């Protein structure tokens, strides 16, 4: 699966989708879910929580390991995906559909400065060596 080109990415393997109202939706990439394996637990940040860029704000746990999810930019959480409470495996089957949380960025320019699909792929390739 290639990385969708309409999304932005972080070097810590989050994907970021900009919505029409300027808010962003955040999940973890295909590469990240593949590394972690079968997901069994997701802890998302509560709506209203203020986040700083690169702050640990969610946890995804597979059978194998726990991994932190980081805020891609600074802003305020507006929603958490409650469906993942009962179906964390959606992250494995549909990583770019199974979002973890939504947030309102403090600065739209911070989102524009994130990695594009090609730059993210270069990060993934460099980790393979």
């Amino acid at each position, binding site marked *: 699966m290639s990385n969708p080109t309409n999304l932005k990415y972080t070097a810590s393997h989050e994907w970021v989708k900009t919505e029409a109202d300027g808010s962003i939706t955040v999940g973890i990439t295909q590469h990240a879910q593949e590394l972690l*394996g079968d997901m069994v*637990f997701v802890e998302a940040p509560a709506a209203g929580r203020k986040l700083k860029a690169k702050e640990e704000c969610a946890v995804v*746990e*597979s*059978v194998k390991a726990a991994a932190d999810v980081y805020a891609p930019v600074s802003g305020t959480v507006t929603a958490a995906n409650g469906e993942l*409470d009962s179906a964390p495996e959606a992250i494995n089957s549909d990583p770019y559909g199974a979002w973890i949380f939504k947030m309102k960025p403090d600065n739209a320019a911070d989102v524009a400065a994130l990695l594009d699909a090609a730059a993210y792929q270069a990060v993934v390739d460099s980790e393979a060596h």
Partner: protein
Amino acid sequence: MTTLKQTPLNATHRAMGAKMVDFGGWDMPVNYGSQIDEHHQVRNDCGMFDVSHMRVVDMKGAGVRKFLRYLLANNVDKLTMPGKALYSAMLRPDGHVIDDLIVYFMTEEWFRIVVNAGTADKDLAWMKAQAAVHAPGLDIADHPELAMIAVQGPHARQKVWEALPGSQELSAGLVPFSAVEMGAMFIARTGYTGEDGFEIMLPAKAATFFWNTLAEKGVKPIGLGARDTLRLEAGMNLYGQDMDETVGPLESGLGWTVDLKSERDFIGKAALLANPPDKKLVGLVLLDRGVLRGHQHVKTAHGDGEITSGSFSPTLEKSIALARVPNGVQIGDTVHVEIRDKSLNAKVVKYPFARNGKGLI
């Protein structure tokens, strides 16, 4: 970067799509597809594991039984029928655990031992050092040239019989925890999953052919990831996590393998008798949402403890763990596990958690 050791099946794993990881210096398959599917495959049907990284050690010569009586915490005098196996800890003089192992009684002049991969060199050095003092005539030789394939699950034995002509006649009568030789192969009705099945030792050069034959009979490859959740559900200890050289067997859930009642002396016995432990190993089931993991801190009404192994149980669909806690903690108690910034509730249970296809909690 150091070069990882490879089993004879390394290329086969890669060809089957395995995700390979560094497992104690060995390049091993952690999963081929979904680890949870692999887990259920073994509980409900059967699967095969490459465990060639484990080491076979043969002890041969007169007086081998007498030496093992002294070397091991369990009593090899329980082994009277040729082929029968015994699970035992091997202890230091201070009672701490060097390794856990399986010893097979083949003849009065030959016992075969299988030890863990990560401890094999250390174990062998210890055995030889002890033999030099207590049984100098003994021949102790390890066999890294042997591969080992475990086939586990309710249909495992049937599949092995289909894949290995002549094996049914020899192995159908094996009682659990015993073994028989078949030419250069060694077929043991043992395992690390809580399911029926065999562990088969064979020459490295025959491993790929046998593995592929099993695959043709429909036996699915299973990675070390599912091996860990299967053994945890079955309540089986993992060396390096549930016990090591900092603890003794009695606080590691291995009291049942230590023979303190007979007159027999063994390495570590005096220390065990002199220092009764104030902790014990119990099972935990997480009541809140989350996943128990090794090294998480446990708070109880009787003092603090620590999780030694924890994961998600695919059979129970809950998180489970083994934890070392103060002796006062009782089955049915609720304890608190610190996970990140939270304190979650867990119930103390008697383990195993699951065996023979079924959850027991």
